């Protein structure tokens, strides 16, 4: 599903002493099927932006186009269309409430009045997609699971609605490296297999660099930078100015290029760790073979 923002602004608490401009004339287009990384500091407008995607917030001005649905300040999102946009909030395990895992996962689909048999098959499917054994887990209380499992159940609860767009707000926050990797790999697999349009909000440049094919850099309620990762990471100075890190791969390449003569420079496109290592291996092994 293609997503278009046309000069979208959002003001919190309009007309009160607490008024705050959170989004400032944002314009962007996200082609269907892309995996977008949204990066920016806390308070840069990332969360406000994604809440516009399924009508939790309406633009104060401007226009949003989600597939064939148009949202403006006066035109709200129709309830049934919310299903198309799966929104996974930060620490999604905090929204679990049912007695059993299966009931919790089916909460979404049931809200959209899907037939019971369909709900059950979707529940099974989405739990398996996030790497949980349906039979073993369906009747357990979600509150007796480990933190990582609870988060998977919560994500399954969103996937069970079979959205066309999946939006995740820092899905790996607070997890250890193994847990982070498992969640991200899972999301990436679903993204490809189900042909979703995926938006991943993250603080980690490494995560953005490893999975996204397009990056949005937010700062002060505006899109400061957007483009394919290779282009975005070339703007090292601008990113630093926004107090954002660049992936370690990018600093490594630019540091090496500082100490190397021009003809030995490494290409800036090497922002993925495996590609960087492959490149270094190639350059370093060649003379030995000769």
């Amino acid at each position, binding site marked *: 599903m293609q997503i278009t923002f046309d000069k979208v602004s959002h003001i*919190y608490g309009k007309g009160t002493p607490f008024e705050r401009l959170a989004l400032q004339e944002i314009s962007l287009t996200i082609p269907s099927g892309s995996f977008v990384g949204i990066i920016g500091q806390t308070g840069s407008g990332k969360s406000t932006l994604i809440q516009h995607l*399924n009508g*939790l917030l309406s633009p104060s001005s401007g226009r949003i186009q989600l597939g064939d649905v148009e949202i403006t300040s006066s035109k709200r999102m129709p*309830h049934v269309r919310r299903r198309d946009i799966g*929104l996974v909030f930060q620490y999604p395990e905090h929204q679990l409430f049912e007695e059993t895992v299966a009931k919790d996962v089916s909460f979404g689909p049931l809200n959209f009045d899907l037939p019971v048999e369909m709900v059950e098959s979707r529940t099974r499917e989405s739990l398996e997609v996030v790497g949980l054994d349906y039979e073993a887990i369906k009747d357990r209380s979600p509150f007796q699971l480990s933190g990582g499992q609870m988060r998977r159940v919560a994500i399954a609860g*969103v996937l069970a609605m079979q959205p066309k767009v999946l939006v995740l707000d820092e899905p790996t926050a607070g997890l250890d490296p193994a847990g982070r990797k498992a969640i991200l790999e899972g999301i990436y697999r679903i993204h490809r297999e189900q042909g979703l349009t995926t938006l991943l909000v993250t603080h980690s440049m490494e995560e953005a660099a490893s999975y996204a094919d397009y990056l949005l850099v937010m700062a002060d309620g505006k899109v400061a930078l957007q483009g394919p990762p290779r282009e975005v990471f070339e703007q090292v100075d601008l990113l630093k100015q926004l107090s954002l890190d660049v992936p370690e791969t990018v600093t490594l390449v630019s540091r090496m290029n500082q100490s190397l003569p021009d003809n030995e420079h490494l290409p800036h496109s090497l922002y993925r760790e495996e590609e960087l290592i492959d490149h270094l291996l190639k350059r370093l092994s060649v003379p030995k073979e000769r």
Partner: protein
Amino acid sequence: MLQNIAIGQYVPGQSFLHRADPRSKLLFIILFATLVFLANNAITYAVLIAFTLITALLSRLSLSYILKSLKPVWILILFTVVLHIFITKGGTVYYQWGSFTIEEEGVRQAIFISLRLGLLILISSFLTLTTSPIDLTEGLERLLGPFGRVGVPVHEIALMMSIALRFIPTLMEETDKIIKAQTARGANFSSGSLLRRAKNLIPIAIPLFISAFRRAEELALAMEARGYRGGVGRTRLNKLAFSWRDSCVAVAGVVLLFVIGWWRS
């Protein structure tokens, strides 16, 4: 947004009234309330009204804002007026229509009672408008301090109140987040029958309770780690200090007491 709801309608400021000690403000209100009930003629009421107006000026809050904060009690005052006009009898009959009369005593009572109510509410709303909840708690704790000797757990009550104050904004934010998360999963909170709506609250209430308990548990652990072991042997950071403003409040109180005592009939 939920987090912008102000508790106790406190409006931050630096006026005379804002900077007076909450203890003197609390004590003054008790005195004022007594005087309102002692007042029984035009002069004494006039004095009290004049005094309330001066207080309003000293708070440096806009008059429209003060009146707006009184909105919910207008109805109550109006109701009292109507009740007294029709029921209280005595003195000259101003108006008669069948067995229905409006008499002097009724009008008199209606005016005085509504004035009393209005004055009491106004003066106590100055307290909440100019004192932050934190200072108010602190002031209450100090004033109730002596009751600690007769077994009232003043210290614990005060700590409870201040922790509640501390967590209200956090839980508001949390509620907002949970509502949004469930809405994103298709929950609909604004339509359906009353029963259905009540049932719709479950997906919000349960996560909220669980989170509140988790927070409470973690907070208890953090408090213990920082050496909390109940009120015994505990000291308090002394934040409240009387200033010349409080002397003014005390003088005003005494003067008011004598004036009302002298002029009342």
